[in-house]
């Protein structure tokens, strides 16, 4: 892979088990934004996680032109399915006349990232990815955006709410786990004084033909993702169970970064899709910038 390392300058995570806990978690989060209007539960959950990243909360409802060099990559398993489900039930019971005009766009899978971009005035790439593994998929796509100079900063991770889930996932927690990434090359790092929590050194993904191929695929994936100059990293595998969602693989990664867990190859697999990021997070008591 031909990419420079990526700085991690912020992390944020919010978890709520069940609808009541979700309401409690969202209690202090704005319900509306001047730019975006009413914010969905998923957008507010993402906003709560994003606000834990340095300076991101300050950009909420900022006036002026959007920041074209900051983008968003979000993964979601359930999207905004609760809105879509409500629309379809109303359509069945009351016909087209019963629908609210805002429901269509609000029920699309990219609605959360769009609302977050509007609320924070992030005018860079705005991408949503689908699937159980989509949180790590989104993180890797954000790294690609930075490596290819499509943006200077990317907010990336996974967001899913229990209200959007359906069987077999209806008991899953609501969660958002986000990383704020920065392109290391100038000028982005020259004008951004935020300290670095760690670095993404490399990434890779694959989908083996059969489940029996997964152990070999993980070893191969870690080799692909590890830069030649880097020592072989310890491997941590996050197996995604059927009820997990797009933030599941990222929540422990956020904790690892907060703790300064050192060099790691972080691998997630769900169904048959495999994703790997190699990160280096200096010890919290040591060399953190």
């Amino acid at each position: 892979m031909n990419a420079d390392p990526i700085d991690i300058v912020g992390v944020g995570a919010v978890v709520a088990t069940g609808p009541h806990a979700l309401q409690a978690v969202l209690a202090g989060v704005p319900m509306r934004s001047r730019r975006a209007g009413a914010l969905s539960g998923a957008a507010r959950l993402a906003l709560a996680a994003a606000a834990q990243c340095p300076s991101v909360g300050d950009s909420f409802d900022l006036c002026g032109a959007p920041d074209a060099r900051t983008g968003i990559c979000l993964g979601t398993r359930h999207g905004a399915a609760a809105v879509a489900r409500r629309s379809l039930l109303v359509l069945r019971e009351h016909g087209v006349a019963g629908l609210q005009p805002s429901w269509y766009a609000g029920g699309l899978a990219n609605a959360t990232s769009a609302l977050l971009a509007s609320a924070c005035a992030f005018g860079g790439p705005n991408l949503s990815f689908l699937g159980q593994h989509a949180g790590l998929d989104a993180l890797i796509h954000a790294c690609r955006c930075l490596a290819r100079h499509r943006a200077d900063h990317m907010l990336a991770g996974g967001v899913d709410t229990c209200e959007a889930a359906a069987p077999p996932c209806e008991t899953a927690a609501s969660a958002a786990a986000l990383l704020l990434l920065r392109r290391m090359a100038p000028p982005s790092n020259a004008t951004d004084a935020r300290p670095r929590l760690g670095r993404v050194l490399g990434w890779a993904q694959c989908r083996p033909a059969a489940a029996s191929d997964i152990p070999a695929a993980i070893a191969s994936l870690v080799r692909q993702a590890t830069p030649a100059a880097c020592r072989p990293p310890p491997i941590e595998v996050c197996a995604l169970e059927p009820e997990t969602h797009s933030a599941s693989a990222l929540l422990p990664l956020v904790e690892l970064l907060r703790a300064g867990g050192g060099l790691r190859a972080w691998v997630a697999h769900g169904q048959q899709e495999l994703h790997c990021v190699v990160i280096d997070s200096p010890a919290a008591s040591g060399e953190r910038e």
Partner: protein
Amino acid sequence: MTVEVAVTGVGVVSPFGDTPMALWDALARRVDARAPWQAAAVAHPCAQAIPVTASGREHTRHRAWQLARLALDKAMASDRVPAAQARIGCILGTTTAGIDALERDLLLGGEAGDGDAVGALLDGRPWGAGASVLSAACASGLLAPALAVDRLALGEAEVMFAGGVDVLLDYTLSGFHGLRLSGTAACRPFDRLRQSVVLSEGAAVLRLEPLRSARARGAGVLGVIKGFGMGCDAGHATAPDATGIARTIRAALDDAQMDPAAVACVFAHGTGTPANDAAEAAALAQVFGAQRIPPVAAVKSVLGHSQAAAGTFSLLSALLALRRGVLPPVANTSEVDPAMGNLVLAAPDTPSGAVALVNAFGFGGTNGVMVIGSHTEAA
């Protein structure tokens, strides 16, 4: 962009047929395929549907993925030299895939379950370089190939398959109706009397690889992707913003290291809705200057708006136009809205030139713009 990427294969499933030639023929003849469409719950007066005449097109729970698989199979079979499995990746864009399963469950009975849309598409296929499903509303079909280009440029894959898919749904038709964006009238992009979009469906997948390796193995090259831009209006969910679109066009031209004067034609998003066309025309005027906007093609006037597939259909149409040397005419538009300034629409004899701009925008303010060139020009 330092790596030019070649398009070396195509797979298409559309209301007009399943080959690029069928698409081009429909564009050239300005075929009108509008017809009433009976959805699961509501009879809609106007849409463009794929005839259910062959295996894989019937209305099943995961119909979007069935169509995507058909297009993918065609794209994979369209090149004589198979790529090594280990270095192939895939990115497919969709607006509503997953909601099709939900819609069938809720409107036609059955147990409402998790769509698991991604698994339905990817099961049974090994993707050595991984596979992703992108949802960027109606920009998905252009942004999926764009992201594939970056994966090739980063050396993560040797070949990428990328495109978009969406099917007609009650959810979509009713949603557009509620927003007053669809009706029974023909799609008249940039026309003084334009009213609405005509919704459609389909799947389109392109095979992409670095131009250098495509040439080295003697592959047939349909055209070359020279650069792209992506951005977000960060404003209203459904009202497009000319400034955000213009910013993305400039990003695409910068990426391609291309002066606006080098662009010979524009394949507009061109939905035929009052707000979208006005914003797009204003954005083009901001970038090119009001007097110097290149001739504009708008394939939704014939192909309709197939949502996430639309960006890939526009890209494919632009590639075919560059190869043939002429632009497809804009159907149904008889008088360009004076509010569009000096916008000139493509006619049957308008030359395409060597470099085209392709636009695709989506709800949520998502914008994608691509700069493409003919293979002759790239050689």
